[in-house]
Protein backbone atom coordinates (compact mmCIF):
# COMPACT_ATOMS: atom_id res chain seq x y z
CA UNK A 1 0.00 0.00 0.00
CA UNK A 2 2.74 2.43 1.02
CA UNK A 3 4.67 1.17 -1.99
CA UNK A 4 1.88 2.16 -4.39
CA UNK A 5 1.48 5.54 -2.67
CA UNK A 6 5.21 6.10 -2.94
CA UNK A 7 5.16 5.48 -6.71
CA UNK A 8 2.33 7.98 -7.18
CA UNK A 9 4.02 10.64 -5.01
CA UNK A 10 7.38 10.28 -6.78
CA UNK A 11 5.57 10.55 -10.13
CA UNK A 12 3.66 13.67 -9.07
CA UNK A 13 6.92 15.31 -7.98
CA UNK A 14 8.60 14.73 -11.36
CA UNK A 15 5.61 16.50 -12.92
CA UNK A 16 7.14 19.85 -11.94
CA UNK A 17 9.96 19.35 -14.43
CA UNK A 18 7.54 18.44 -17.21
CA UNK A 19 5.34 21.44 -16.44
CA UNK A 20 8.41 23.68 -16.73
CA UNK A 21 9.33 22.00 -20.06
CA UNK A 22 5.78 22.62 -21.25
CA UNK A 23 5.21 26.20 -20.08
CA UNK A 24 7.57 27.88 -22.56
CA UNK A 25 6.24 25.71 -25.40
CA UNK A 26 2.64 26.51 -24.52
CA UNK A 27 3.32 30.24 -24.16
CA UNK A 28 4.59 30.90 -27.67
CA UNK A 29 1.98 28.61 -29.18
CA UNK A 30 -0.65 30.64 -27.37
CA UNK A 31 0.71 33.98 -28.54
CA UNK A 32 1.71 33.24 -32.15
CA UNK A 33 0.52 29.68 -32.99
CA UNK A 34 4.18 28.68 -33.32
CA UNK A 35 5.31 25.24 -32.17
CA UNK A 36 9.02 25.34 -31.51
CA UNK A 37 10.35 21.88 -32.37
CA UNK A 38 13.72 22.96 -30.94
CA UNK A 39 12.21 23.69 -27.51
CA UNK A 40 13.64 20.52 -25.96
CA UNK A 41 17.06 21.38 -27.37
CA UNK A 42 16.76 24.90 -25.95
CA UNK A 43 16.22 23.32 -22.50
CA UNK A 44 19.34 21.17 -22.98
CA UNK A 45 21.22 24.28 -24.16
CA UNK A 46 20.33 25.92 -20.82
CA UNK A 47 21.71 22.92 -18.95
CA UNK A 48 24.96 23.02 -20.95
CA UNK A 49 25.28 26.77 -20.41
CA UNK A 50 25.14 26.10 -16.67
CA UNK A 51 27.63 23.24 -17.02
CA UNK A 52 30.01 25.57 -18.84
CA UNK A 53 29.73 28.19 -16.08
CA UNK A 54 30.29 25.57 -13.37
CA UNK A 55 33.34 24.19 -15.18
CA UNK A 56 34.80 27.66 -15.64
CA UNK A 57 34.08 29.16 -12.23
CA UNK A 58 33.26 26.28 -9.91
CA UNK A 59 30.14 28.11 -8.77
CA UNK A 60 27.19 26.23 -7.22
CA UNK A 61 25.02 25.17 -10.24
CA UNK A 62 21.77 26.68 -8.92
CA UNK A 63 23.41 30.12 -8.89
CA UNK A 64 23.93 29.83 -12.65
CA UNK A 65 20.20 30.53 -13.02
CA UNK A 66 21.01 34.22 -12.41
CA UNK A 67 23.08 34.31 -15.59
CA UNK A 68 21.57 31.53 -17.72
CA UNK A 69 17.96 32.76 -17.55
CA UNK A 70 18.61 36.31 -18.83
CA UNK A 71 21.06 35.00 -21.43
CA UNK A 72 18.50 32.54 -22.74
CA UNK A 73 15.83 35.27 -22.75
CA UNK A 74 18.11 37.48 -24.84
CA UNK A 75 18.82 34.62 -27.22
CA UNK A 76 15.11 33.94 -27.57
CA UNK A 77 14.35 37.58 -28.34
CA UNK A 78 17.09 37.77 -30.98
CA UNK A 79 16.07 34.46 -32.57
CA UNK A 80 12.45 35.60 -32.84
CA UNK A 81 13.35 38.99 -34.34
CA UNK A 82 16.03 37.67 -36.71
CA UNK A 83 14.50 34.38 -37.87
CA UNK A 84 11.20 33.18 -36.46
CA UNK A 85 9.18 36.35 -37.22
CA UNK A 86 9.87 35.76 -40.91
CA UNK A 87 8.28 32.31 -40.77
CA UNK A 88 4.93 33.34 -39.27
CA UNK A 89 1.85 33.31 -41.46
CA UNK A 90 -1.13 31.24 -42.47
CA UNK A 91 1.11 28.35 -43.53
CA UNK A 92 2.20 26.21 -40.56
CA UNK A 93 5.03 24.59 -42.53
CA UNK A 94 7.80 27.26 -42.38
CA UNK A 95 7.97 27.64 -38.58
CA UNK A 96 7.93 23.84 -38.11
CA UNK A 97 10.69 23.23 -40.65
CA UNK A 98 12.84 26.13 -39.47
CA UNK A 99 12.63 25.09 -35.81
CA UNK A 100 13.26 21.47 -36.80
CA UNK A 101 16.43 22.60 -38.59
CA UNK A 102 17.33 24.65 -35.54
CA UNK A 103 16.96 21.54 -33.38
CA UNK A 104 19.54 19.69 -35.51
CA UNK A 105 21.87 22.72 -35.43
CA UNK A 106 21.70 23.05 -31.61
CA UNK A 107 22.17 19.30 -31.04
CA UNK A 108 25.25 19.15 -33.23
CA UNK A 109 26.64 22.43 -31.93
CA UNK A 110 26.47 20.99 -28.39
CA UNK A 111 28.02 17.77 -29.66
CA UNK A 112 31.00 19.75 -30.97
CA UNK A 113 31.38 21.74 -27.77
CA UNK A 114 30.77 19.06 -25.15
CA UNK A 115 30.99 15.60 -26.87
CA UNK A 116 28.16 13.05 -26.78
CA UNK A 117 28.82 12.16 -23.12
CA UNK A 118 26.05 12.14 -20.55
CA UNK A 119 26.47 15.01 -18.09
CA UNK A 120 25.09 16.06 -14.73
CA UNK A 121 25.36 19.36 -12.86
CA UNK A 122 27.13 18.81 -9.52
CA UNK A 123 24.38 19.95 -7.14
CA UNK A 124 26.02 18.25 -4.19
CA UNK A 125 23.77 16.89 -1.44
CA UNK A 126 20.96 19.27 -2.45
CA UNK A 127 19.26 16.69 -4.65
CA UNK A 128 19.33 13.84 -2.13
CA UNK A 129 17.76 15.51 0.92
CA UNK A 130 14.31 14.20 1.68
CA UNK A 131 11.71 14.31 4.40
CA UNK A 132 9.84 11.24 5.58
CA UNK A 133 6.05 11.70 5.45
CA UNK A 134 5.21 8.16 6.50
CA UNK A 135 7.39 5.16 7.12
CA UNK A 136 8.45 4.10 3.61
CA UNK A 137 7.29 7.34 2.01
CA UNK A 138 10.04 9.91 1.45
CA UNK A 139 9.64 13.14 -0.41
CA UNK A 140 12.74 14.56 -2.07
CA UNK A 141 13.07 18.25 -1.27
CA UNK A 142 14.65 19.07 -4.63
CA UNK A 143 11.83 17.78 -6.87
CA UNK A 144 9.31 19.20 -4.37
CA UNK A 145 11.02 22.58 -4.71
CA UNK A 146 10.91 22.27 -8.52
CA UNK A 147 7.19 21.46 -8.40
CA UNK A 148 6.52 24.51 -6.21
CA UNK A 149 8.71 26.62 -8.49
CA UNK A 150 6.77 25.39 -11.53
CA UNK A 151 3.53 26.46 -9.84
CA UNK A 152 5.09 29.85 -9.02
CA UNK A 153 6.29 30.31 -12.61
CA UNK A 154 2.83 29.47 -13.95
CA UNK A 155 1.14 31.72 -11.37
CA UNK A 156 3.60 34.51 -12.18
CA UNK A 157 2.97 34.14 -15.90
CA UNK A 158 -0.80 34.29 -15.36
CA UNK A 159 -0.35 37.46 -13.28
CA UNK A 160 1.87 38.91 -16.00
CA UNK A 161 -0.58 38.02 -18.79
CA UNK A 162 -3.69 39.28 -17.03
CA UNK A 163 -2.49 42.12 -14.79
CA UNK A 164 0.17 44.02 -16.75
CA UNK A 165 0.00 46.21 -19.85
CA UNK A 166 2.64 44.11 -21.64
CA UNK A 167 0.74 40.93 -20.78
CA UNK A 168 -2.46 42.43 -22.15
CA UNK A 169 -0.59 43.33 -25.34
CA UNK A 170 0.58 39.71 -25.59
CA UNK A 171 -2.95 38.37 -25.21
CA UNK A 172 -4.26 40.97 -27.62
CA UNK A 173 -1.70 39.94 -30.22
CA UNK A 174 -2.79 36.35 -29.74
CA UNK A 175 -6.49 37.18 -30.16
CA UNK A 176 -6.20 39.51 -33.14
CA UNK A 177 -2.77 40.23 -34.58
CA UNK A 178 -4.16 42.70 -37.15
CA UNK A 179 -6.28 44.89 -34.90
CA UNK A 180 -3.62 45.06 -32.21
CA UNK A 181 -1.34 46.90 -34.65
CA UNK A 182 -3.97 49.62 -34.96
CA UNK A 183 -3.42 50.19 -31.24
CA UNK A 184 0.17 51.12 -31.98
CA UNK A 185 1.64 47.83 -30.79
CA UNK A 186 4.55 46.33 -32.72
CA UNK A 187 3.77 42.63 -33.21
CA UNK A 188 7.36 41.73 -33.96
CA UNK A 189 8.48 43.11 -30.61
CA UNK A 190 5.61 41.39 -28.76
CA UNK A 191 6.49 38.06 -30.38
CA UNK A 192 10.11 38.66 -29.37
CA UNK A 193 9.02 39.17 -25.75
CA UNK A 194 6.99 35.95 -25.84
CA UNK A 195 9.94 33.92 -27.12
CA UNK A 196 12.25 35.60 -24.60
CA UNK A 197 9.90 34.45 -21.82
CA UNK A 198 9.70 30.97 -23.33
CA UNK A 199 13.48 30.67 -23.50
CA UNK A 200 13.87 32.05 -19.97
CA UNK A 201 11.60 29.33 -18.57
CA UNK A 202 13.39 26.75 -20.74
CA UNK A 203 16.75 27.94 -19.35
CA UNK A 204 15.44 27.62 -15.80
CA UNK A 205 14.05 24.17 -16.59
CA UNK A 206 17.39 23.17 -18.12
CA UNK A 207 19.44 24.11 -15.05
CA UNK A 208 16.99 22.41 -12.68
CA UNK A 209 16.79 19.25 -14.80
CA UNK A 210 20.56 19.21 -15.30
CA UNK A 211 21.11 18.85 -11.58
CA UNK A 212 18.56 16.08 -11.10
CA UNK A 213 19.02 13.71 -14.04
CA UNK A 214 21.55 13.15 -16.78
CA UNK A 215 21.52 15.15 -19.99
CA UNK A 216 23.37 14.89 -23.29
CA UNK A 217 23.26 16.83 -26.57
CA UNK A 218 20.76 14.27 -27.90
CA UNK A 219 18.33 14.66 -24.97
CA UNK A 220 16.36 17.54 -26.49
CA UNK A 221 13.64 15.72 -28.44
CA UNK A 222 12.63 13.69 -25.40
CA UNK A 223 12.13 16.89 -23.37
CA UNK A 224 10.07 18.32 -26.21
CA UNK A 225 7.82 15.25 -26.24
CA UNK A 226 7.33 15.29 -22.44
CA UNK A 227 6.44 18.99 -22.46
CA UNK A 228 4.12 18.51 -25.41
CA UNK A 229 2.36 15.58 -23.73
CA UNK A 230 1.86 17.59 -20.54
CA UNK A 231 0.20 20.35 -22.61
CA UNK A 232 -2.16 18.03 -24.50
CA UNK A 233 -3.04 15.95 -21.41
CA UNK A 234 -3.84 19.11 -19.45
CA UNK A 235 -5.76 20.79 -22.27
CA UNK A 236 -4.35 23.26 -24.77
CA UNK A 237 -4.12 26.85 -23.50
CA UNK A 238 -4.71 25.98 -19.84
CA UNK A 239 -1.44 26.58 -17.95
CA UNK A 240 -2.72 25.11 -14.68
CA UNK A 241 -3.97 22.13 -16.69
CA UNK A 242 -0.43 21.81 -18.04
CA UNK A 243 0.93 21.54 -14.49
CA UNK A 244 -1.57 18.76 -13.75
CA UNK A 245 -0.81 17.19 -17.14
CA UNK A 246 2.88 17.09 -16.23
CA UNK A 247 2.07 15.42 -12.93
CA UNK A 248 -0.18 12.83 -14.61
CA UNK A 249 2.60 12.10 -17.11
CA UNK A 250 5.04 11.73 -14.19
CA UNK A 251 2.76 9.25 -12.43
CA UNK A 252 2.28 7.20 -15.62
CA UNK A 253 6.06 7.03 -16.05
CA UNK A 254 6.60 6.10 -12.40
CA UNK A 255 4.09 3.24 -12.69
CA UNK A 256 5.82 2.06 -15.88
CA UNK A 257 9.24 2.24 -14.25
CA UNK A 258 7.98 0.20 -11.32
CA UNK A 259 6.95 -2.62 -13.66
CA UNK A 260 10.28 -2.49 -15.54
CA UNK A 261 12.75 0.41 -15.90
CA UNK A 262 12.50 -0.04 -19.68
CA UNK A 263 8.79 0.85 -19.54
CA UNK A 264 9.23 4.27 -17.88
CA UNK A 265 9.13 6.51 -20.97
CA UNK A 266 6.94 4.12 -22.93
CA UNK A 267 4.24 4.13 -20.22
CA UNK A 268 4.13 7.93 -20.35
CA UNK A 269 3.69 7.92 -24.13
CA UNK A 270 0.96 5.29 -23.91
CA UNK A 271 -0.89 7.21 -21.20
CA UNK A 272 -0.72 10.26 -23.47
CA UNK A 273 -2.18 8.34 -26.43
CA UNK A 274 -4.88 6.81 -24.21
CA UNK A 275 -5.92 10.25 -22.95
CA UNK A 276 -5.91 11.57 -26.52
CA UNK A 277 -8.27 8.72 -27.40
CA UNK A 278 -10.59 9.21 -24.44
CA UNK A 279 -10.50 13.02 -24.14
CA UNK A 280 -9.20 14.66 -27.34
CA UNK A 281 -9.33 18.15 -25.77
CA UNK A 282 -7.36 17.07 -22.72
CA UNK A 283 -8.50 16.43 -19.18
CA UNK A 284 -8.94 20.10 -18.23
CA UNK A 285 -10.02 21.90 -21.42
CA UNK A 286 -10.22 25.67 -21.18
CA UNK A 287 -13.79 26.89 -20.94
CA UNK A 288 -14.91 28.60 -24.12
Amino acid at each position, binding site marked *: MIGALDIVVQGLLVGGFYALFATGLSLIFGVMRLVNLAHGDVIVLGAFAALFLVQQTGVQPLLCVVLVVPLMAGLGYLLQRAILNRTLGANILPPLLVTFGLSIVIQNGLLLGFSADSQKLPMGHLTIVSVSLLPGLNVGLYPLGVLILAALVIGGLQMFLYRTALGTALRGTSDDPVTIRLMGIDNRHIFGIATALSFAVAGLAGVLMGGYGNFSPAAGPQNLLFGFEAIIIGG*LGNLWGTLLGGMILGVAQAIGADIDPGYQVLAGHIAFLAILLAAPRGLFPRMA
Partner: protein
Amino acid sequence: MRDRAAIVFGLSLLVCAAIPLFGDNGERQLGLEFAATLTLATLWNLLAGYAGVISIGQQAYVGLGGYVLFALTVFAGMPVLAALPLAAAACGLIAMPAGRLLFRLRGPHFAIGTWVLAEVFRLSAAQVSALGGGSGMSLPIMSILAISHSRPQRLLDFYLLSAALALATSAAVAVLLRSRFGLGLTAIRDAEAAAASLGVDVMALKWIVYVITAALTGLTGALLFLQNVRISPDAAFSVNDWTANVIFIVVIGGIGRPAGPLIGCLVFFAFRAAFAGYGAWYLIGLGGLAIAMMLLQPQGIVGFVEAAWRRRAPARAGV
Protein backbone atom coordinates in the same frame (compact mmCIF):
# COMPACT_ATOMS: atom_id res chain seq x y z
CA MET B 1 15.45 25.96 -74.24
CA ARG B 2 13.45 24.60 -71.34
CA ASP B 3 12.47 21.41 -73.15
CA ARG B 4 16.02 20.78 -74.31
CA ALA B 5 17.33 21.25 -70.78
CA ALA B 6 14.74 18.78 -69.49
CA ILE B 7 15.73 16.20 -72.10
CA VAL B 8 19.46 16.56 -71.36
CA PHE B 9 18.72 16.31 -67.63
CA GLY B 10 16.53 13.24 -68.12
CA LEU B 11 19.13 11.48 -70.27
CA SER B 12 21.94 12.14 -67.82
CA LEU B 13 19.73 10.76 -65.04
CA LEU B 14 19.16 7.58 -67.06
CA VAL B 15 22.92 7.23 -67.54
CA CYS B 16 23.46 7.69 -63.78
CA ALA B 17 20.74 5.15 -63.00
CA ALA B 18 22.49 2.64 -65.28
CA ILE B 19 25.89 2.97 -63.56
CA PRO B 20 25.06 0.50 -60.73
CA LEU B 21 24.08 -2.14 -63.33
CA PHE B 22 27.70 -2.38 -64.43
CA GLY B 23 29.37 -0.89 -61.37
CA ASP B 24 30.88 -2.45 -58.26
CA ASN B 25 29.22 -3.23 -54.92
CA GLY B 26 29.78 0.28 -53.58
CA GLU B 27 28.02 1.86 -56.54
CA ARG B 28 25.12 -0.56 -56.25
CA GLN B 29 24.81 0.17 -52.54
CA LEU B 30 24.84 3.92 -53.21
CA GLY B 31 22.32 3.46 -56.01
CA LEU B 32 19.84 1.58 -53.85
CA GLU B 33 20.29 4.07 -51.02
CA PHE B 34 19.61 6.91 -53.44
CA ALA B 35 16.51 5.21 -54.81
CA ALA B 36 15.16 4.46 -51.31
CA THR B 37 15.81 8.03 -50.14
CA LEU B 38 14.11 9.37 -53.26
CA THR B 39 11.07 7.21 -52.48
CA LEU B 40 10.90 8.49 -48.90
CA ALA B 41 11.27 12.09 -50.09
CA THR B 42 8.59 11.68 -52.77
CA LEU B 43 6.20 10.30 -50.15
CA TRP B 44 6.99 13.07 -47.66
CA ASN B 45 6.47 15.66 -50.39
CA LEU B 46 3.05 14.14 -51.13
CA LEU B 47 2.19 14.30 -47.42
CA ALA B 48 3.50 17.75 -46.52
CA GLY B 49 3.68 19.50 -49.88
CA TYR B 50 0.27 18.50 -51.21
CA ALA B 51 -1.92 17.13 -48.42
CA GLY B 52 -0.61 19.61 -45.82
CA VAL B 53 0.02 16.71 -43.42
CA ILE B 54 3.27 17.48 -41.64
CA SER B 55 4.72 14.37 -40.07
CA ILE B 56 8.05 14.21 -38.33
CA GLY B 57 7.39 10.60 -37.42
CA GLN B 58 7.64 8.74 -40.73
CA GLN B 59 10.50 6.73 -39.19
CA ALA B 60 7.67 4.87 -37.40
CA TYR B 61 6.79 3.14 -40.68
CA VAL B 62 10.36 2.76 -41.98
CA GLY B 63 11.16 0.80 -38.82
CA LEU B 64 7.84 -1.04 -38.63
CA GLY B 65 8.19 -2.21 -42.24
CA GLY B 66 11.69 -3.44 -41.49
CA TYR B 67 10.65 -5.28 -38.33
CA VAL B 68 7.60 -6.90 -39.96
CA LEU B 69 9.83 -8.21 -42.76
CA PHE B 70 12.34 -9.62 -40.25
CA ALA B 71 9.63 -11.16 -38.07
CA LEU B 72 7.86 -12.83 -40.98
CA THR B 73 11.14 -14.21 -42.29
CA VAL B 74 12.48 -15.41 -38.95
CA PHE B 75 9.31 -16.66 -37.22
CA ALA B 76 7.10 -17.69 -40.15
CA GLY B 77 9.95 -18.87 -42.37
CA MET B 78 8.56 -16.76 -45.21
CA PRO B 79 10.75 -15.99 -48.25
CA VAL B 80 11.85 -12.35 -48.00
CA LEU B 81 10.35 -11.35 -51.35
CA ALA B 82 6.95 -12.64 -50.26
CA ALA B 83 7.28 -10.81 -46.95
CA LEU B 84 7.90 -7.42 -48.63
CA PRO B 85 4.29 -6.71 -49.71
CA LEU B 86 3.05 -7.99 -46.35
CA ALA B 87 5.31 -5.49 -44.57
CA ALA B 88 3.71 -2.72 -46.63
CA ALA B 89 0.23 -4.02 -45.87
CA ALA B 90 0.96 -4.22 -42.14
CA CYS B 91 2.12 -0.58 -42.12
CA GLY B 92 -1.00 0.52 -43.97
CA LEU B 93 -3.23 -1.41 -41.55
CA ILE B 94 -1.52 0.06 -38.47
CA ALA B 95 -1.67 3.54 -39.99
CA MET B 96 -5.47 3.39 -40.27
CA PRO B 97 -6.29 3.58 -36.54
CA ALA B 98 -3.04 5.46 -35.78
CA GLY B 99 -4.00 8.15 -38.29
CA ARG B 100 -7.51 8.41 -36.86
CA LEU B 101 -6.05 8.93 -33.40
CA LEU B 102 -3.30 11.39 -34.38
CA PHE B 103 -5.60 13.55 -36.53
CA ARG B 104 -7.30 14.55 -33.30
CA LEU B 105 -4.25 16.79 -32.94
CA ARG B 106 -4.31 19.86 -35.14
CA GLY B 107 -1.56 21.14 -37.43
CA PRO B 108 1.73 21.51 -35.62
CA HIS B 109 0.58 19.31 -32.73
CA PHE B 110 -0.13 16.51 -35.17
CA ALA B 111 3.53 16.73 -36.20
CA ILE B 112 4.76 16.12 -32.65
CA GLY B 113 2.12 13.41 -32.19
CA THR B 114 3.59 11.45 -35.09
CA TRP B 115 6.95 11.65 -33.34
CA VAL B 116 5.44 10.24 -30.14
CA LEU B 117 4.02 7.32 -32.14
CA ALA B 118 7.45 6.59 -33.64
CA GLU B 119 8.95 6.65 -30.14
CA VAL B 120 6.27 4.22 -28.92
CA PHE B 121 7.26 1.83 -31.73
CA ARG B 122 10.99 2.25 -30.99
CA LEU B 123 10.66 1.72 -27.24
CA SER B 124 8.27 -1.22 -27.74
CA ALA B 125 10.63 -2.94 -30.19
CA ALA B 126 13.40 -2.57 -27.62
CA GLN B 127 11.23 -4.34 -25.02
CA VAL B 128 10.34 -7.42 -27.09
CA SER B 129 13.00 -10.01 -26.38
CA ALA B 130 11.92 -12.15 -29.35
CA LEU B 131 12.94 -9.23 -31.57
CA GLY B 132 16.33 -9.07 -29.88
CA GLY B 133 15.41 -6.19 -27.56
CA GLY B 134 17.60 -3.13 -27.77
CA SER B 135 20.34 -4.85 -29.73
CA GLY B 136 18.05 -6.02 -32.53
CA MET B 137 18.13 -9.06 -34.78
CA SER B 138 19.58 -10.41 -38.03
CA LEU B 139 18.04 -12.13 -41.00
CA PRO B 140 18.85 -15.85 -41.14
CA ILE B 141 21.67 -16.53 -43.60
CA MET B 142 19.52 -19.05 -45.49
CA SER B 143 16.92 -16.46 -46.49
CA ILE B 144 19.69 -14.15 -47.72
CA LEU B 145 21.28 -16.91 -49.78
CA ALA B 146 17.86 -17.82 -51.17
CA ILE B 147 17.86 -14.49 -53.02
CA SER B 148 21.24 -15.20 -54.55
CA HIS B 149 24.51 -16.77 -53.48
CA SER B 150 26.60 -13.95 -54.86
CA ARG B 151 26.73 -10.65 -53.00
CA PRO B 152 27.13 -8.49 -56.15
CA GLN B 153 24.08 -10.20 -57.64
CA ARG B 154 22.07 -9.61 -54.45
CA LEU B 155 23.02 -5.95 -54.38
CA LEU B 156 22.02 -5.67 -58.02
CA ASP B 157 18.63 -7.25 -57.22
CA PHE B 158 18.12 -4.88 -54.30
CA TYR B 159 19.12 -1.92 -56.44
CA LEU B 160 16.64 -2.90 -59.15
CA LEU B 161 13.89 -3.38 -56.56
CA SER B 162 14.61 0.03 -54.96
CA ALA B 163 14.83 1.76 -58.33
CA ALA B 164 11.56 0.15 -59.43
CA LEU B 165 9.93 1.26 -56.19
CA ALA B 166 11.22 4.82 -56.62
CA LEU B 167 9.98 4.96 -60.21
CA ALA B 168 6.61 3.42 -59.35
CA THR B 169 6.14 5.78 -56.40
CA SER B 170 7.05 8.85 -58.46
CA ALA B 171 4.73 7.75 -61.27
CA ALA B 172 1.91 6.91 -58.85
CA VAL B 173 2.20 10.30 -57.14
CA ALA B 174 2.23 12.08 -60.51
CA VAL B 175 -0.89 10.19 -61.67
CA LEU B 176 -2.56 10.72 -58.29
CA LEU B 177 -2.02 14.47 -58.43
CA ARG B 178 -3.60 14.67 -61.89
CA SER B 179 -6.71 12.77 -60.76
CA ARG B 180 -9.84 14.21 -59.17
CA PHE B 181 -8.37 13.10 -55.86
CA GLY B 182 -5.19 15.06 -56.59
CA LEU B 183 -7.24 18.11 -57.50
CA GLY B 184 -8.76 17.97 -54.02
CA LEU B 185 -5.28 17.67 -52.52
CA THR B 186 -3.95 20.63 -54.46
CA ALA B 187 -6.99 22.60 -53.34
CA ILE B 188 -6.15 21.72 -49.72
CA ARG B 189 -2.57 22.84 -50.22
CA ASP B 190 -3.59 26.17 -51.73
CA ALA B 191 -6.44 27.06 -49.39
CA GLU B 192 -7.64 24.48 -46.90
CA ALA B 193 -10.67 26.40 -45.64
CA ALA B 194 -11.84 27.26 -49.16
CA ALA B 195 -11.43 23.63 -50.26
CA ALA B 196 -13.52 22.46 -47.32
CA SER B 197 -16.27 24.96 -48.08
CA LEU B 198 -16.42 23.71 -51.69
CA GLY B 199 -17.12 20.18 -50.52
CA VAL B 200 -13.66 18.62 -50.31
CA ASP B 201 -13.65 16.27 -47.32
CA VAL B 202 -10.30 17.55 -46.05
CA MET B 203 -9.87 15.14 -43.13
CA ALA B 204 -10.79 12.06 -45.16
CA LEU B 205 -8.32 13.00 -47.92
CA LYS B 206 -5.55 13.64 -45.42
CA TRP B 207 -6.19 10.32 -43.72
CA ILE B 208 -6.12 8.40 -47.02
CA VAL B 209 -2.82 10.04 -47.99
CA TYR B 210 -1.41 9.27 -44.54
CA VAL B 211 -2.32 5.57 -44.85
CA ILE B 212 -0.99 5.22 -48.43
CA THR B 213 2.32 6.89 -47.58
CA ALA B 214 2.63 4.75 -44.44
CA ALA B 215 2.33 1.55 -46.51
CA LEU B 216 4.87 2.69 -49.11
CA THR B 217 7.21 4.10 -46.45
CA GLY B 218 7.02 0.69 -44.74
CA LEU B 219 7.86 -1.07 -48.01
CA THR B 220 10.90 1.20 -48.44
CA GLY B 221 11.96 0.50 -44.85
CA ALA B 222 11.62 -3.24 -45.41
CA LEU B 223 13.84 -3.02 -48.51
CA LEU B 224 16.41 -0.87 -46.72
CA PHE B 225 16.77 -3.28 -43.81
CA LEU B 226 16.60 -6.34 -46.06
CA GLN B 227 19.82 -5.23 -47.77
CA ASN B 228 21.22 -4.25 -44.36
CA VAL B 229 20.55 -7.82 -43.03
CA ARG B 230 20.48 -6.41 -39.45
CA ILE B 231 17.86 -4.29 -37.71
CA SER B 232 17.86 -2.59 -34.30
CA PRO B 233 15.35 -0.19 -32.69
CA ASP B 234 17.64 2.85 -32.78
CA ALA B 235 18.56 2.37 -36.44
CA ALA B 236 15.06 1.37 -37.55
CA PHE B 237 13.22 4.27 -35.88
CA SER B 238 15.91 6.94 -36.29
CA VAL B 239 14.38 10.40 -36.67
CA ASN B 240 17.61 11.78 -38.13
CA ASP B 241 18.10 9.13 -40.81
CA TRP B 242 14.53 8.64 -42.01
CA THR B 243 12.84 11.96 -41.35
CA ALA B 244 15.31 14.84 -40.80
CA ASN B 245 17.32 14.09 -43.93
CA VAL B 246 14.15 13.56 -45.94
CA ILE B 247 12.67 16.86 -44.77
CA PHE B 248 15.88 18.70 -45.64
CA ILE B 249 15.90 17.08 -49.09
CA VAL B 250 12.33 18.13 -49.85
CA VAL B 251 12.83 21.67 -48.50
CA ILE B 252 16.04 22.20 -50.47
CA GLY B 253 14.62 20.68 -53.66
CA GLY B 254 11.27 22.41 -53.48
CA ILE B 255 8.32 21.46 -51.29
CA GLY B 256 5.06 20.93 -53.14
CA ARG B 257 6.94 20.75 -56.45
CA PRO B 258 6.85 17.45 -58.40
CA ALA B 259 10.58 17.59 -59.18
CA GLY B 260 11.52 18.81 -55.69
CA PRO B 261 12.43 15.42 -54.14
CA LEU B 262 14.65 14.38 -57.06
CA ILE B 263 16.56 17.68 -57.19
CA GLY B 264 16.81 17.68 -53.38
CA CYS B 265 18.20 14.11 -53.40
CA LEU B 266 20.85 15.02 -55.97
CA VAL B 267 21.94 18.03 -53.89
CA PHE B 268 21.82 16.03 -50.65
CA PHE B 269 23.94 13.13 -51.94
CA ALA B 270 26.47 15.53 -53.47
CA PHE B 271 26.60 17.56 -50.24
CA ARG B 272 26.99 14.37 -48.22
CA ALA B 273 29.73 12.99 -50.45
CA ALA B 274 31.64 16.27 -50.09
CA PHE B 275 31.15 17.05 -46.41
CA ALA B 276 29.99 13.95 -44.47
CA GLY B 277 33.55 13.56 -43.18
CA TYR B 278 33.07 16.71 -41.12
CA GLY B 279 30.64 14.93 -38.77
CA ALA B 280 28.70 17.38 -36.61
CA TRP B 281 29.71 20.35 -38.78
CA TYR B 282 28.16 18.60 -41.77
CA LEU B 283 24.81 18.27 -39.98
CA ILE B 284 24.97 21.89 -38.79
CA GLY B 285 25.59 22.92 -42.41
CA LEU B 286 22.68 20.79 -43.64
CA GLY B 287 20.30 22.15 -40.99
CA GLY B 288 21.50 25.70 -41.67
CA LEU B 289 21.02 25.23 -45.41
CA ALA B 290 17.45 24.04 -44.89
CA ILE B 291 16.70 27.00 -42.59
CA ALA B 292 18.18 29.47 -45.09
CA MET B 293 16.22 27.85 -47.91
CA MET B 294 12.95 28.08 -45.98
CA LEU B 295 13.56 31.76 -45.18
CA LEU B 296 14.99 32.99 -48.49
CA GLN B 297 13.68 30.58 -51.12
CA PRO B 298 10.69 28.70 -49.67
CA GLN B 299 9.92 27.15 -53.07
CA GLY B 300 13.33 25.47 -53.09
CA ILE B 301 15.71 25.08 -56.00
CA VAL B 302 12.91 23.99 -58.33
CA GLY B 303 10.88 27.10 -57.51
CA PHE B 304 13.95 29.28 -58.05
CA VAL B 305 14.68 27.75 -61.47
CA GLU B 306 11.04 28.01 -62.52
CA ALA B 307 10.99 31.69 -61.60
CA ALA B 308 14.26 32.30 -63.45
CA TRP B 309 12.88 30.60 -66.57
CA ARG B 310 9.74 32.68 -66.39
CA ARG B 311 11.83 35.85 -66.25
CA ARG B 312 13.97 34.83 -69.21
CA ALA B 313 11.13 33.74 -71.44
CA PRO B 314 8.05 35.70 -70.36
CA ALA B 315 6.33 35.09 -73.70
CA ARG B 316 6.32 31.32 -73.15
CA ALA B 317 5.14 31.43 -69.59
CA GLY B 318 1.55 31.89 -70.74
CA VAL B 319 -1.03 33.61 -68.59
